């Protein structure tokens, strides 16, 4: 497993945890929105493992590069916020997919899973248009790559998580930006009546990465407790 983050301090724990489970793991700090750094990362993958079977494009966020939140209303979104978020969610997916395909093509096998968002499917008050737009675009890229790469044996799919308590930051955001009343109203909009867990997203990603999903390409699996159904 190759573990990447822009923040080096977040990588080591994950690498060790994977190694403890008896698997080979390498960490690499790189900015997935920078073509040179992405090239360096994939050169390392090629050198270390000689091949790549699975790519999960999980880098992203509403702030871009962990730089905090960007504005929510279009009238207040500076151009640089727009660029930053589009780069984090969309360009990173493009760059990493482009490099991964070079490694997958010779093997005639590959699985790419892109982490989109329920925000791609509907608007919300808590993220700006730059977030919704880039996550929608990830789904467009997913479909196009699925079509183009199927003849090469490469499957491309996406997942669209709803509100997932994925980190202490997400928990703070859930608790601090909403009143108790607003939280109850939010949960009422989720038929399952709760927020999601990161493992519940991971399960769907693992399914799509596996050979169980051998006739599935170009799809999006919604993991949102029923809060949005299409």
């Amino acid at each position, binding site marked *: 497993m190759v573990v990447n983050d822009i923040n080096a301090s977040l990588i080591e724990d994950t690498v060790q945890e994977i190694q403890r489970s008896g698997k080979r793991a390498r960490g690499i700090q790189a900015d997935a929105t920078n073509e040179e750094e992405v090239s360096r990362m994939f050169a390392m993958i090629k050198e270390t493992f000689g091949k790549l079977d699975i790519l999960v494009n999980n880098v992203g966020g509403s702030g871009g590069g962990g730089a905090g939140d960007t504005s929510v209303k279009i009238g207040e979104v500076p151009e640089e916020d727009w660029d930053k978020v589009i780069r984090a969610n969309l360009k990173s997916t493009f760059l990493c997919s482009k490099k991964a395909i070079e490694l997958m093509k010779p093997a005639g096998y590959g699985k790419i899973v892109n982490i989109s968002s329920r925000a791609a499917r509907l608007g919300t008050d808590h993220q700006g248009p730059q977030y919704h737009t880039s996550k*929608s675009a990830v789904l467009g890229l997913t479909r196009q790559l699925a079509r183009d790469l*199927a003849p090469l044996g490469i499957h491309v799919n996406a997942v669209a998580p709803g509100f997932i308590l994925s980190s202490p930051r997400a928990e703070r955001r859930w608790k601090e930006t909403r009143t108790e009343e607003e939280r109850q109203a939010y949960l009422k909009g989720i038929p399952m009546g709760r927020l999601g867990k990161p493992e519940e997203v991971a399960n*769907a990603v693992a399914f799509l990465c596996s050979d*169980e999903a051998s*006739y599935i390409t170009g799809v999006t699996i*919604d993991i949102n407790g029923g809060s949005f*159904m299409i």
Partner: protein
Amino acid sequence: MRFAGKVAWITGVARGIGFATASALAREGADLAINDIRPLDEAAAKLKGMGRSVLAMQADVTIARQVEEMAEKIFKGFGHIDILVNNAGGGLNVPFSIVEMQEEDWDKVVDLNLKGSFLCCKAAIPYMRKQGKGSIVNIASLAGRSSATTVGPAYTGAKAGLLGLTRHLAKTEGPYGIRVNAVCPGSIMTELLAERFKSYPKEEQEKRLAGTPLGRFGRPEEVAAAVLFLASDEASFITGANIDVNGGRFMQM
């Protein structure tokens, strides 16, 4: 074994996707309540051979009383109903054109593909509500997501309706801990179709595969894998969702 100790009710099990789903569930430890309108002796024998308890029920899913009796039998035999897979369905060889389609053609296709699922959900949900847990997977179709080239408007309409039923029940049953999802298979190569396909000239074969990016038909086992994922606790935050198993033939937001 993801389904050890679970009881799964699957309709339309005599062959194809239904049988593949039942086999996969049995392999993963589930006890089975299987149904078909056709005799089930052969399917039941094979599934029992996998070491699971199998309750075989020949019944018509479009008749309310027969469906209710199935649910009662399952509860009596196993004490719970954890999973329902509404797989019974089909095109029934009615005319493709609406002009030639008779009212009774429409009714029998809609009854089989939509009403049957409604009745089975209606029968299973009270038990699932009491358990505070349950997972329903409806086998819809690519036809319900888009349209179809070989089956008529009744099939497309009924399968689209089944997706609507899926979403409705996901919403109303979510608070009871019941998840309801769908799988939409594209062209799946069942044994019957495989024989027919082989007899086509190469040109015709290619024509039928054009438009499927993966360049082949699917296998029943590949549909079963998606059903099992949705039925399992791995999908614990997924409800009202659909998984397309169509080789990329139809992709939609």
